[in-house]
């Protein structure tokens, strides 16, 4: 509801009914109608296509319907612009702004910019030494600025700086074959689509720009102006989110109900992927004479066995690896949380003290969190090597000194050790990040609480137990939630730590499994279903944790 101040402002900003209609308004109405017609034509075209980028009919029809939306928006906008309603202007702005962005992206694509990113990197690297000229120019400029305003060298240095920078630019342009580039870009205009998109970008851009300046004509309030400016600032993120996150997310949800395979048009198969993945059966094996496999129905394989008296209960699953990967992931999380949270808490307590050099150690412990996982995993692979690795060297030395048997730990191959090896690496990487979180939490605890506890005669442990831990509860909750989510999504560590393919069963986590099905297995429909089941698990775990925390908060 508009406030009185807003109404006053509106009166102030609303021009009289006889004020002249800016030309941009009828132009926008016309353009909107053209867009509506274009979108309807595009929608009909999409519905009529024989093949829609190997995405299947449902996506084709969905796209056909989605394309209608801007048409409806454009028609609504035209009507409201005619009626001089502010909403018409906002709808027109949305259409025109998004149109500008899409046309520019299309033009850049036709110019070959996106597909040449590697060449761009090569170009930057090749010509990087030349850019030193800019550094030199800027250095001279900075030097000139340090001189007094009356010093005659000040202007000379700035002029020389500009000269050097300009010369550098010319050399750089020549070195990077700017004429060839211009020639190539001009050649792309042999394609009609390049002209259409360029014209579209210009028209959309001009209309957007002009429409932005019609606030007064539509009686725009300062608060409304602030609002659209805020949305404008957010728009790169929103557009990116829609195209690169929400779109693929929706697409993966659709794929999870298809038999999608690389190179083929997916067909909808209902919930078959989910039923295949989640199907289990229980059978008794009465005699050791028969194999476990043979007592299960066709398509099922033994997942686990339970001895009940003389008999053996066999749990079979149609997708054994899915269940094993889920089991591994859950065990991984159960080990990761204490191994990354408890050391982090201890470290944060130490780093929260006023010991000399503590800032250096804060940075040091954070380093593993910023290091690339693939790089660190390669180093850990060497550390874990059973014959030339550092860990076994230490174990051999210690057991030899103590006269004990050398266990010769097979870190990356032993069935009972493999998962622990991954957890150790992941925990080592997470400890630094969790330490920073705990440190922030510790520094937020009011010192008066400790002073009060001391006055009450509490010793160090009692202070920690009764002040620090309760006050760190929100931080601990955050650390545990984020660590569990990180743990449920673990992929990089098993991917990089094991050189051979397939990786050991014990190292196959849920996300690795879905990668395995999607890329080496070509079955991206099934992999999408795995992803959505994993999403449901993460959502459920997080939801329960939030509920628990909320109820604890109420109790406290």
């Amino acid at each position: 509801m508009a406030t009185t101040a807003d109404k006053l402002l509106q009166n102030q900003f609303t021009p009289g009914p006889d004020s002249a209609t800016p030309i941009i308004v009828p132009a926008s109405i016309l353009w909107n109608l053209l867009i509506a017609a274009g979108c309807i034509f595009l929608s009909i075209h999409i519905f009529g296509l024989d093949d829609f980028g190997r995405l299947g009919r449902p996506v084709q029809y969905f796209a056909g319907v989605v394309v209608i939306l801007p048409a409806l928006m454009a028609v609504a906008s035209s009507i409201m612009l005619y009626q001089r309603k502010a909403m018409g202007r906002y709808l027109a702005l949305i259409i025109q702004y998004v149109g500008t962005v899409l046309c520019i992206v299309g033009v850049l694509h036709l110019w070959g910019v996106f597909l040449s990113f590697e060449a761009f990197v090569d170009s930057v690297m090749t010509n990087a030494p030349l850019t030193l000229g800019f550094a030199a120019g800027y250095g001279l400029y900075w030097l000139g600025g340090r001189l007094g305003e009356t010093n005659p060298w000040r202007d000379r240095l700035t002029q020389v700086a500009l000269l050097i920078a300009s010369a550098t630019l010319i050399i750089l342009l020549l070195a990077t074959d700017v004429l060839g580039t211009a020639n190539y870009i001009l050649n792309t205009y042999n394609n009609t689509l390049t002209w259409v998109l360029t014209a579209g970008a210009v028209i959309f851009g001009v209309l957007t720009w002009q429409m932005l300046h019609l606030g007064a004509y539509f009686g725009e309030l300062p608060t409304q102006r602030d609002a659209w400016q805020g949305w404008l600032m957010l728009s790169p993120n929103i557009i990116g989110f829609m195209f690169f996150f929400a779109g693929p997310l929706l697409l993966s949800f659709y794929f999870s109900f298809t038999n999608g395979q690389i190179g083929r048009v997916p067909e909808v198969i209902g919930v078959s992927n989910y039923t295949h993945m989640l199907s289990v059966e229980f059978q008794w094996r009465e005699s050791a004479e028969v194999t476990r496999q043979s007592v299960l129905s066709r398509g099922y394989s033994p997942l686990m066995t339970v001895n009940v008296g003389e008999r053996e209960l066999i749990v079979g699953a149609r997708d054994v690896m899915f269940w094993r990967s889920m089991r591994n992931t859950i065990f991984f999380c159960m080990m990761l949380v204490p191994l990354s949270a408890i050391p982090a808490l201890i470290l944060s307590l130490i780093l929260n003290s006023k010991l000399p050099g503590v800032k250096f150690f804060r940075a040091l412990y954070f380093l593993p969190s910023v290091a690339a996982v693939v790089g660190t995993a390669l180093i850990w692979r060497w550390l874990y090597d059973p014959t030339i690795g550092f860990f076994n060297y230490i174990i051999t030395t210690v057991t030899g000194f103590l006269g004990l048997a050398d266990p010769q730990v097979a870190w990356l191959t032993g069935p009972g050790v493999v998962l622990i090896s991954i957890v150790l690496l992941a925990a080592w990487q997470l400890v630094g990040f969790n330490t920073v979180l705990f440190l922030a939490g510790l520094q937020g605890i009011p010192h008066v609480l400790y002073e009060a506890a001391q006055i009450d005669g509490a010793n160090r442990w009692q202070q920690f137990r009764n002040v620090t831990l309760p006050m760190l509860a929100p931080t601990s909750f955050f650390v545990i939630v984020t660590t569990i989510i990180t743990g449920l999504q673990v992929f990089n560590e098993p991917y990089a730590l094991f050189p051979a393919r397939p990786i050991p069963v014990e190292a196959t986590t849920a996300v690795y499994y879905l990668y395995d099905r999607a890329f080496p297995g070509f079955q991206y429909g099934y992999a999408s279903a795995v992803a959505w089941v994993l999403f449901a698990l993460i959502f459920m775990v997080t939801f329960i944790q939030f509920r628990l925390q909320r109820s604890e908060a109420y109790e406290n």
Partner: protein
Amino acid sequence: MLRRPLTALLLIALAAMMAVPVSFAQDDEEIELRWRTRPDNQAEIDVYTAASEAIDAEWEGVTLRYEPGGSETAAYQDVLVTELEAGTAPDVFWIPGTDIARFASAGLILNLADLASDDADFDVEDFYAGPMSFLTTALDGMDDDALWGLPRDVSAFAIYFNADLFDEAGLPHPEDGWTWAEFVEAAEEISGLGADIRGFGMNAWWANWGYFVNAAGSSFFNEDFTACGLDNQATVEGLETARMLFDNGWAIPWGSDSEPPFIAGTVGMFMNGRWATPNTITNAEFNWNVAPLPVGPSGMETNWLFWGAYVVNANTEHPEEAWDLVTRLTSAEIQGQIADLGANIPSRATDEAIELFLNTLPGSGVNNAAFVSGTTSEDVRTEAPLFFGDWPSIDEAYGTGVTAVFNGDLSAEEFAASICEQVEPLFD
């Protein structure tokens, strides 16, 4: 005031550099072909780049762009598959032999049979028969002839042995025709030289354990590659022999990368392909050489014939030129240039090509003949793309079972008894 012009200049410079990529312009008449391999190191990249430039220079009307793909560990196939789905993959690319069937079945690569039949210079017989038999296998329900690509190179396993450790253990160096008994004895004797010394090492992928079951007389598949072939006593014998090496501590534990300890001089024998030779020459600081694989209970010299092929993107806009490029890349001249690296063997089974390979790495003393004999063994099994089954899943099931055997969680008998039943649904 100068800050603004300087900033503007910097921005223009950046824009100029960003615009450079699009300057890979070609004349309207020129056709641009992109091609890609999976090189193992910079030396290979340099050789392929030079080969590409040489072909480009003499080929009127076509411009080549060579793109070195990521290494084996950088998910070469993952990137390729993503690009194929996105429609941005190169016109010609290399894939391993085991991937041919699934790429063909998925419609990702072009059937070149018609193009080849129009090419008077092309003769199937010029190449090793094993890879060509798979490359000409028609898909189920396909009436036409098939040709999915041409092999880039071939390779075979050999035993890289540390001659110093053999001498220290008082053992003769392995030679043609040596047997499993001698091999196992050598592994044991060398392991006895020290706590950190192992007699044998191999890496953990299918071909390594596969050698043991093949040499014992078993096989991954039945004769027509339509079903599992591991349900027999020979599989048990082969796996038990390998497991004995692990159980006794005579081998680097299964799953570990055996190459670093071999290069470090702590492993007596290391089973690997020709691709490991350049690295060994560069880094090994001990006396070493290569020998053929030992003869197993089957009584025959057994080996794998590894291969990969150049194939053509099914969506290429220039199929004729792409086929032309494939034939140029597999010409004797280009294969000779690449074989000089010492990393692989030419895929042309001609005397000229073999002679060329035997003369590679002059002065290194490497027994090149051990690899050639590997490719022509009595019982050479060609790396097989599976046209009638899901090879990645079967590989996973086989590998999981074999790992369980080597780790002591499953007996070799149990594996042999259950594995074929387990993978049966994975065959068409």
